[in-house]
């Protein structure tokens, strides 16, 4: 899909708002365990009570597990193919996630831009998940950058 054909009107519009079930201590612990983290702040509810947060909290990058209900708006998703990939993330952290927190993620496309390199043309889409807890506190802004190679018409993967 040529870069010029991508609908830019989606930039800035909220395309998804998703509220998660209350965070479970077990899922926060499981995330930390799966990264090989031993720190009791993230693994041990009892020991974490004497830590700086007064209780168990999620390891900060747990927020990347919160991908919302609709990953990308259909107007952009239809241009993504299997050779698109995750080019990077920028995360601003706010309040820590605690067991019982009810988190809501709102999603927006913030940028769509093109680059040309040795291997040809590629375009990038940047989308933000803004995650807040049920106290209205910002938990994180997660900006994800996806890269998609431009393809000639008729070459899109299914």
């Amino acid at each position, binding site marked *: 899909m040529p870069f010029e054909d991508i609908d830019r009107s989606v930039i800035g519009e909220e395309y998804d708002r998703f509220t998660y079930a209350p965070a479970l201590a077990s899922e926060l612990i499981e*995330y930390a365990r*799966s*990264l090989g983290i031993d*720190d009791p702040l993230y693994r041990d509810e009892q020991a974490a009570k004497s830590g700086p947060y007064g209780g168990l909290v999620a*390891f*900060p990058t747990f927020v990347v597990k919160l991908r919302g209900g609709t990953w990308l708006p259909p107007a952009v998703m239809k241009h993504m193919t299997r050779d698109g990939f995750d080019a*990077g993330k*920028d995360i*601003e*952290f706010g309040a820590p996630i605690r067991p019982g927190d009810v988190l809501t993620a709102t999603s927006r496309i913030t940028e769509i831009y093109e680059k040309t390199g040795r291997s040809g043309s590629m375009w990038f889409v940047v989308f933000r998940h803004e995650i807040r807890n049920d106290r209205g506190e910002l938990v994180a802004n997660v900006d994800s950058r996806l890269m998609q190679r431009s393809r000639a018409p008729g070459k899109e993967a299914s």
Partner: protein
Amino acid sequence: MRGSAPTFDGLEPGDELGPLTIDLGGAFVRDHAVAMNMNAGRFTSDAEAKAEGLPGQITPGNMSLGLLARALLGWLPQARLERIGTTFRGLALAGVPARIQAMVTEKSDAARRIECDFWMENEAGDRLVIGTATLRFPEPSS
């Protein structure tokens, strides 16, 4: 570990943190991918990754990000991670050790913050992930 870690006062721009070598074993990567509900074959199986045209099972970018944060907070456990930014430059293959290292690039005494550059590289020295982070240290107790 917390007692022997570098303090804010002991850190200066140019200081190196690490390295930390992590064995990205296939089972470790698969276990994390499953915990993240990222069940695509490229993250869970060498054979399925190869069927997709990849050289083998790969580490999800989100896992590399988590491991980089783990390294930073492991080296600086008193600090709080305020921001992290990563660029995924190459495939982090499962079964290949990854080496993580960082360097302090800026320090603000007033805000008790440091900025770091960090990177993850393979055995050949290829930088697979690069990025920057901001960490804030608590006020010293009086």
